[in-house]
């Protein structure tokens, strides 16, 4: 039996002390297409170096669906070690087979179903009739934009799995990231990373570019490289042949 506390501040919470709420988080997924440790480790390091701040202590779900489909087995405990060594915090497995799922649960790693996975291309190959239904909600979910109406202050981070629209300034020392495009309808002074999951078509738009860093799909420029950019002018930034192009919006 639980011992009752006699502390007077118990009266602060007259009602229940907790409740369960449903929340949606956007978490990066590490989709594996090789079971070779050396390759995984090497490529993971390379990716992380592109945006160390973004990946540091970032939660991650790893997806082994493709491996299983191609009959490539992978040791879950070893994979977890590799991911953790890279500074990421694994919080789930997706697309694992029965044995892998059991191994994950034993290691306190939750199992996610492939149900709402990003990788609808895999699903479509499997079940062509489901294509129409599967694609529509997926693209709708992808298009889901996050809208921020208050200033993003120094030290704050915002991540959107779709587009990110900020209607106020982004301060120096703040970091905004989106898998899709980024729009800032005010001064952009912090870091802005668009297409963080590799979407090279993503763009950044802002009404005044004074950013510390801008990046699209891992290609970046720091403020030092942007000295010649005129202030107080709306610009767009996009990727062309692996180079970032900053262009006035006339």
């Amino acid at each position, binding site marked *: 039996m639980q011992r009752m506390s006699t502390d007077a501040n118990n009266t602060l919470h007259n009602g229940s002390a907790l409740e369960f709420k449903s929340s949606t988080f956007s978490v990066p997924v590490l989709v594996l297409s090789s079971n070779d440790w050396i390759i995984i480790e090497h490529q993971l390091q390379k990716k992380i170096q592109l945006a160390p701040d973004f990946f540091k202590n970032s939660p991650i779900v790893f997806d082994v669906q493709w491996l299983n489909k191609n009959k490539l087995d992978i040791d879950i405990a070893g994979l977890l070690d590799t991911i953790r060594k890279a500074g990421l915090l694994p919080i789930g497995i997706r697309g694992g087979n029965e044995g892998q799922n059991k191994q994950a649960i034993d290691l306190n790693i939750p199992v996610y179903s492939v149900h709402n996975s990003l990788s609808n291309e895999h699903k479509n190959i499997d079940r062509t009739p489901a294509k129409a239904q599967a694609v529509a909600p997926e693209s709708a979910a992808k298009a889901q934009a996050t809208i921020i109406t208050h200033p993003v202050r120094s030290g704050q981070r915002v991540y959107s799995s779709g587009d990110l629209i900020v209607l106020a*300034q982004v301060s120096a020392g703040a970091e905004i990231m989106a898998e899709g495009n980024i729009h800032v309808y005010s001064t952009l*002074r912090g870091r802005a990373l668009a297409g963080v999951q590799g979407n090279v078509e993503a763009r950044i738009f802002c009404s005044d570019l004074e950013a510390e860093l801008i990046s699209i799909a891992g290609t970046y420029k720091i403020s030092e490289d942007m000295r010649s950019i005129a202030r107080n002018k709306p610009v767009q930034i996009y990727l062309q042949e692996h180079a970032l192009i900053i262009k006035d919006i006339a």
Partner: protein
Amino acid sequence: MARIIVVTSGKGGVGKTTTSAAIAMGLAKKGHKTAVIDFDVGLRNLDLIMGCERRVVYDFINVINGEASLNQALIRDKHCDQLYILPASQTRDKDALTQEGVGKVLEELSKDFQYVVCDSPAGIERGAHLAMYYADDAFVVTNPEVSSVRDSDRMLGLLSSKSRRAERNEEPIKEYLLLSRYSPERVKIGDMLSVDDVQDILSLHLLGVIPESKSVLTASNSGVPVILDEKSDAGQAYADIVARYLGEDRPHRFIDEKKGLFGKLFGGK
């Protein structure tokens, strides 16, 4: 219910304690029963600025730990009987502050005070976090200098995400900008950020500008809040700030350069 005001900045040495003392005194002099709490546990300063260091028996930590009652620890100000000071402990550190303890003290104060001013320590760690956690209003004290502005911006981010109001999804903390140690002469020669520069970076409602003034140091050393020095420009600036906070419409002063006799005689801008 009391309105809880946190005086905060992130950076040290910008004038938080001076501001806390002046604002609390200003509110009390307007007839509002006010308490001012020193959250800088371990580096007790507020009692010095308020001139009550010789009358400290019990402190904030004693109250939190239940070693003294709130009434035993509160010191009544000798200039204004509507003002009470809750000093910080000199012998403890900020780990002695607990969220529940602070909450309990603020709740009790809220019963018979109209305003509670929390003087935050510098930094963004425990002491500063707990000083702002329960706040309704935040006075962000900033010097016209880039690192101070950057730290204030960081603090504003914390105010909007790490406070009780944010956690409960209530109306956010009202944030006000107080620009202190302002010197129009140095702004003119480009040594200092201007009011416009700071507002451009922080985009925050300006409650007032406090000019760099010798009277602040004199007031601190003699233990009399500068707002009581009605002749000084800093004292008047704080009086304006309190009046504006209470809803009065007062034009901003001390932003432009003081004109000498020559300038006054011949006018012109």
